[in-house]
Structure formats: C-alpha cells, structure tokens
C-alpha cells in the first residue's frame, strides 16, 4: 500500500490518483466540550502499526474512503467508503490475478 490503493468503487488504482487527510477520526457532536474538539482537531493516536485513514480518490470516483494500513510495513488492511455505502474490501477477499 503506497503504490496501489484498493478503492472500494474502482479497484486497485495508482497512489497518484489519491490524496490523504490522515487519521480517520470522527467529528464530535456540536455540543461536545472544547477539550473534545481540541482532541479531534489536534491530537492523534499516530500508531506504528494498523491505522485507519481518510483518503480521497481525487482523480477517480471522488469518493472519500477509509483505508486501513500498517504505517510501518505499509501492509494493506482493507478499505471502505467513508460514508459506509460500499462494502469493506479486505485483503483476504482479494482473488487471484488470473
């Protein structure tokens, strides 16, 4: 994962077609306190390992997707549409090349 991204809508596409926004954190409720908002906007888990991130298929279907990947090995862990309308693609479901 870093050369090809498995878009849940378009399949494997070159990484150049995508942009990324970092951690797939969920926006707090409007009534959340300021600490929660500061957390959301500024603090990050930043793990060395599996990480869920927002990616945008900017030069493709224009959908925002959540990509799970390992930040150390770049191993692919699955993708889904950010709005949850496309089924999760997990690496185990990948079929043979033929």
């Amino acid at each position: 994962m870093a050369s090809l991204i498995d878009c849940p809508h378009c399949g494997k596409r070159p990484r150049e077609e995508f942009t990324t926004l970092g951690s797939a954190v969920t926006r707090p409720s409007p009534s959340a306190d300021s600490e929660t908002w500061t957390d959301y906007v500024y603090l990050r888990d930043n793990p060395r390992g599996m990480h869920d991130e927002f990616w945008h298929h900017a030069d493709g279907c224009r959908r925002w997707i959540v990509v799970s990947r390992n930040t150390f090995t770049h191993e692919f862990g699955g993708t889904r549409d950010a709005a949850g309308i496309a089924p999760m693609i997990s690496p185990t479901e990948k079929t043979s090349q033929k």
Partner: protein
Amino acid sequence: MTPYRLSTGGLIDRKRPVSFTFDGKQYEGFAGDTLASALLANGVSLMGRSFKYHRPRGVMTAGAAEPNALMEIGTGGRREPNTRATMQEIYPDLHATSQNRWPSLDFDIGAANSLLSPFLSAGFYYKTFMWPKSFWEKVYEPFIRKAAGLGRIAEEADPDTYGKAWLHCDLLVAGSGPAGLAAALAAGRAGAKVVIVDEHAIAGGHLVDTREVVDGKSAQAFVEDAVAELRGLPNVTFKTRTTALAWYDDNVVALVERKQKHVAAPEANRAVEILWRVAAGHVIMATGAEERPLVFAGNDVPGVMLASAMRRYLNRFGVAVGRNIAIFTNNDSAYALAAEAEASGITVAAIIDTRSTAPSWTGRARVLTGSEIIATQGGKALKSVTVRTGAKEETLSVDALAMSGGFSPIVHLACQRQQKPVWNEDLQAFLAPDTNGALTPAGSVAGAYSSQQAFNDGADKAVEALTRLGFDAATPAADFADKTPGNPSGLWLPGDVKGKAFIDYQNDVHYKDIGLAVREGFDHVELAKRYTTNGMATDQGKLSNINAIALIARARGCSIAEVGTTTYRPFYTPVSFATLSGTHYGTHFAPVRSSPLHAWSLARGGEMVDAGLWYRPMYYKQAGDTDMMASINREVLAVRAGAGICDVSTLGKIEVTGPDAAKFLDLLYCNDFGKLAVGRARYGFMLREDGIPFDDGTTSRLGENVYFMTTTTAYAGPVLAHMEFCHQQHWPDLDVRFVSVSDQWAQMAIAGPRAREILASLVDEDISEEVFPFLSAKEVTLGSGVVNARLFRISFSGELAFEIAVPAGYGPSVADAIVAAGAIPYGVEALNTMRLEKGYITHAEMNGMVTVADLGFDRMVSRRKDDFVGKHMFGREGLVRENREQLVGVRALKAEDRFTAGAHVLKIGDQVSLENDQGYVTSSVWSPVVKGYIGLALVKGGRNRIGEKVRVWNALLGTDVEAVICSTDHLAEANGGKNA
C-alpha cells in the same frame, strides 16, 4: 586485430567494426563490445583515477558493480558523467573521456595525495581544518570541493526524449540467467503474462560467459533458443538493456529500459530511456551473485580484476585481459576460468589458492595452495605479483590477475523495503529476507550456484508462484553437462597487510581504515560506513560491503551475522533525472488550464501570467500604452469612468442542488445561507475546523434547491474536496448533490457606471436597478433566447458591476458583444488595483493565520447556528485576544513614496526590532484614483489606530516611507465617503 582480441570466440559481431575515441585517441572495437571490452582489446588498462588518492585504476568488473572505469560519455547536452565503461556499449564515434584527473589520466597531479595518505586516514577531516576559523570556507573547503567529485555535468540542456509508462503482469522476472530463463519459460508456457528483463544487451546472464554444454548445445545456443521461444510467445515481454531498479509497495517494480543509449544518433522524438512501473502479481528475483574481490596489498593495480569479469571478457567479448595471467582465489569457481584461458592460449602462471587443498586440476598452471598474494608490482599496469606460501615468497611476472573472493547474492531488490538480508553461515553469504511471498529469489541469488542448480531453482520457484496465482504450470527442464554442484565459498581475509589493500576502490577505503573506525568507536556497521565512506561510492558497496563487514566483525570479535549489513535502498544502479521525469518537465512540468476566453484575451493584446495552473491576462496592451503601468492605469480609469470586462472564468464554480442544499451550505459557511431568498447572492466565508478562514466567495440561490457557488481560483479544487469530505464523512444523510462546473461556464465581470446599460442591451430580461438590485442573481437569456446565462449583480471593484456566466463555448462571442457595446477589456492587475482601492480581500489577506474577526467580518459569523465547520474552535483565547493583527488600509503620505507588500509596519520613532513589529502590508498597489501608493495591512490592534502615522519599512528593497493607517475602503476615502 587489436593486440588483446582473440582470433575467435565471443558474441561480438566481427563483421561490424566500430571506431570510438577515449581521451581523444581513436580505437576500434566491434558491435557488441562494451567500452571496457573494446579498450581492453586495445590493450588499454588504465581507465580511471580513484576519488581520494587519485590512484591509477583499471576495470575491475564486467558489469553494473564497476567502481573504477567510470567515464564521461558524449558531449554538450549529452555529456554524461560517471558512466560505467562496463555497461556502455560502443557505437560509431562514441566519445569517452576519463575523469577526476588533471592534467591527464596518465599524469595526474592529484596522485600526490597518495604520498600524504598516512595523514589522510578515515575521518581525518573531522579532526582538523578548524583553525583559523575562517580558513574552512576560504581555503580548505574550496580545495576539497575542487578535488572531490568525479565527472562533469552536461554543458547544456538535454536534447533527448524520455518516457515512462505502466506495465501489468502476472510474473516479473528480473534477470535472464539460467534461473530467470527457467522461470520465464515456466510462466510463458503456462500462459501467464510475463515480463522478463536483463540489464545487459544480451540475455543469458552468467551462462553466456561460460563454455558449458546444455541439452547438447553450447550455452550460447541454448540461451538463444530459449530467448527465441519466449519472444515468440504473445504473453511474454522480453526486455534486454533493462534494469530492475527498485521494489516498491504492492509489488510495483521500477525498471529502466535503455532504448537508444547504444546508438550514435538517437531517433528524435523516440525515448532514449523509459521508466517502467511494473505492477506484478509476483516477482522472481533471478539477479545472480556478485563476485567479491580479495583483500591484499596492491589489489587495485590496473590489470587486477574479478575472475568472473575476466571470464566474461574472454567468452562474451573474445578478449584476453592478459597474455600471461595469475589467478588468486579462495574457491573453486575460478578454476573454470583457468581452464578456458589455457584453452584460448593464455598462459596461466599460477593459481594461488588460499585453501590448503585445491579441487582436481588437470591444466598446465601451477596450483599454489595455502598461498596468498602479499603485494603487486606495477603502477599503471600490473607487472608482477608477490606470492607467499608459508614462509616462502616468490614473485610471478604477470600482466593480469584474476581474483575471486567468493560470491555475494545480489539481494538488493528484496531488501529495499526495510527488511534486512540474513547471513547464511553455510554459504558464507547474506541471503534475501523472507518477503511474505511477493518476491522469490531464485538461482545463485538464492545460493543455487551451478547453472544446473540455478535453472532448476528458477523453474521450481516459478511453478510454485504460478500455482499460487492460479496457473497450471509445468516445470521446464534442461540438462547441463556439468553436474558439479556449486561450491559455496568462504570469506577470506589476510592476517595482516603491508601496504594498501583496498576494500572500497572508488572511495579509497582500505583495510586499515576499517580497523581505525572500529577503534575509534564507529563499530556499528552504519557508523563505520559513515565514518570511512565505505560503500558510499557510485557502486554503493556492491564489491566492498561484505569484505568491510567481515573486517568489522573481526575487529569487534563477533560474527558477521551480528554486524549485519547497512541498509539497502533504491536504486540498484543509478538512474537519471531524465528517466524519472519522462516528458513531465519544462513546459509539461504541470498541466495548463485555459479559460474559454484565453484566445480571446490573446487576440486583444492580453499579456498572460501564470496563476496556479491557469494563465490569466495581466493587462491588455494597447497602442499608446508606454508601459505596463500605463496599461493598468488606463484600464482602471476607463472602468471607473465607463465600463470594462474582465475574464473571471478561472474562479471555482460549484453547482449545489437538492432538498438539503441550504442545510449543507449552512454547515459549510460560517454565515447564514439557509434564509437566502431565491434570486439573491451572498458573500460568505468557509472556515477550517480550527476556526481560521479557508476560502471566501459568493453563493447565489438560483432556484428553490439550486445554488451556484463561486470560490477563489486557487481554492476551487480544495473547496470541492472539502465539500465532498463534509458531505460524505460528516453528513452523508443530507440529500444534496454538487458538481464542479468551473470549466462549463465562461464568466465575465462587467464593471463601471455603464455596466448596466451595456448588459441591458444584450440581456433579454429587465435588469433595471428596481428589479435587479445589488446582490441579485438569476438565470437569463441573451440574444432573444439564443444563449442561456447566469447573471449576478455583485462587485469586486466598488463600481456598479455584474458577473455574467455563459456556456463556455459562447464566451468569446458574448465577450465580443460586450466590448462592442462599449466595455474595454481589463486584466487582473486592474482588477487587483480596483479591489484594493475598495479594500476587498484575497488570499493575500486570508493568509491561513488570521480570523474572520481580524479581517473585520466578525458580524458575519452566525450566532444562530449550533454547528458549522470551524464553529467550535474560533473562540479560543489566542484567536480572540486583544492586540491581534487586524486588517486596515495603509496609504503613503507622499505621492512619490512607494511601498510594497511584505513591508513591515513600525511605529514612528521605534527602533527596528522584531519586538517592535506592528504588522505587515498584505497587498499594495499604485492607485490612479488616490494617486499614490495604497495597500491593505494586518496591524496589531489596527482598527483602533485609524489615522496613526506609521513607518512602512522594507529593508530588502531599502524603502522606509511614512504612511497613514486608514480604512480599508480607499475609494470611499478618496471620494469623500461615496459608495457603490
């Protein structure tokens, strides 16, 4: 025939002689020769100088690992430094020049460094050159810089064409030796999509350097048949002169294919090199093994080379490197060279074997077991070697020496994704790490050293991979007459060295340097590398690393496995900017976006300037305009006196529709949009989630559920992506659709007192002040219903102004009609002048640090809405504290005084210091209305300082003028309060 060319043999084309020059002297070789083989055939053994000591050096290898024979090839824009003579094929009139020598390769002043070598040990420069302090930059460093470096860069731009493209395959095979051929045959016959590559001009790898017999044929004929079969298969792509450079995530491999580097005159407009990005289902890494040099004093004299290289010159190129040679080895492999050399009439004076027992040998050469070379003689060409056997020393006169210190698998690709190679004690070699099944080493890179073993290994590994990919593959077979299994060879190091035994040839790192590094605390392999520069030359340690690691292990008293390797990184061999760029440079560095009115502007004298990816007219040059300022001022005054038309098509245009469109806009903008009436336009700010303005623009409600949004030119893309993010991630339940229509509409601003009159003559509908007042927006038609248009009564100049959008194709004719009706074209400079006169902001003011309040729009922020992007962060103490920089106008006090954006504001009488900084000018312009320099500025507590005289200070331009802080609306001030 040249003196060292054998009368027969080799894969060169003896019917096609090729002449070329080296250091101005003309030589002849044959088609199929490399520069190195052709020079060797001509008896040229001195081919380069080393980096530090400028020692005379000859060719060491016959391949990509060459550290010594580096040359400048070509002239002018095609001059290419540091080219390996071992990889460069000769072509007619090839022009090669030696490098890093002065005045000549034969007599190089820099060689005096060798005399100073006791004082130039590893890292010596860290300990000296510190006094006097100023001498480093003035004396020492300029000298060092001049002495360093190898060849010279091209003299001018490159005339050649390059390309890059993707390839997709089931199996990529890197290397076409016995293992690679077997793998490709297995995959090709099974119907898989195969790409097989080899870095040399001909396929076969090490197999074509031998006199082996395969399936009853010569090795060369066997390879030829296999290649013919593969090339005949439609599912196989066979690329020679192609190197696998790097292995990236998802099994994407970067290849460089040298299409026209071996021809005298590359065909114009066809790529000389192509970068292939291969997305492979599986990779078979059949990259072979690199022979290791032996470490002994004088192991760098021209004439000393690797045994495998000598064998390649002999069998592939028909070149005898020497007529009377010796072979120094610690393993069996070099005995084949001895036999083949003798068969070709070359005298082998002795085989010097470090081991106590030698393999069976039936040739003429003496075999000296338990022996080592302790010195060599000859400066620029080898004359003799001194051999020590036990206590006995003898000197053998030879003109070339082949050495073999065993083999190191070429594991680079497998190790480029942070996994380290693994030391194998039995093979005394580092092998590829486990790569999770995506890449399989096969052949000698995996320790299968004999040709038969390599072939079988390649076949088996390919079948295994193909099965996993879902192919039904059969195992190809070949019968090699020589059934002797490959003999793993140890690592041999001398007990002690008198003189210089080189480890890294190019960087002149020798035996004692490694020991010194460890003694001084640089005992980690990475520290030793960095301190000594071992492995940092253009060959990246292909020959030197393993010997260095063994020496470190010995000095530390630990195992080689414990020392480990340095990090393997792309690229396997160096690759040019040109290849990596393809056609994406210069004019094509970034795509060009053209407004529908681009040609229209050009035809009217528009002077274009790049604005992001767009080009926009700065101004329109007319007869009588003496200079750019004259054009701009003419345009401004004409607009303010009559009317002008400006192309604003580059603004982002986004159409938002759906029942929840209003709700969505309310979440995007910090001000209210929900209650915007149909037919009305409103200016608004979008914030980032941290509460800072992101972009501004006007959004108009054209129908119950139809909105037309404009963004700034630069933020058209980011705003759309932001909207998609907000909709898809935050509020997917909102029933709203939006689409960029930036390219669909040609949009024009028509400004000036006559604007309404001009438009009224074209628009079918009534657009009088009464029915179409300020901030109106509606869909209209032009020319009695011929053209649909969108009309907005908005202004960016303080004048009566409209923007009209028409389908892109109609842009030029509508613009013509507007001009015909009396508007003059004006460019972005006049636009900018007028917006500054009126105090309108752009991203120069909205700089990513200021708040809406800083910009003076505090009251626009909705207090009603309980949510919008940025709402929850903009009230933080730092963003609302007193004395933040606020947007104000600044005006030069004297008409002749000039200031520019980026100048800072200081209180009059204050000392110049960062503490006294009051802010800075965000934009400035000469105003033909004010008749002086005006600007906008962000000034600490600025809005309470209207009327204060300040210094506007620009040390970079040497200007320091007095100005007054004023309202942002310079136009109103100049007109005594009149507003548009």
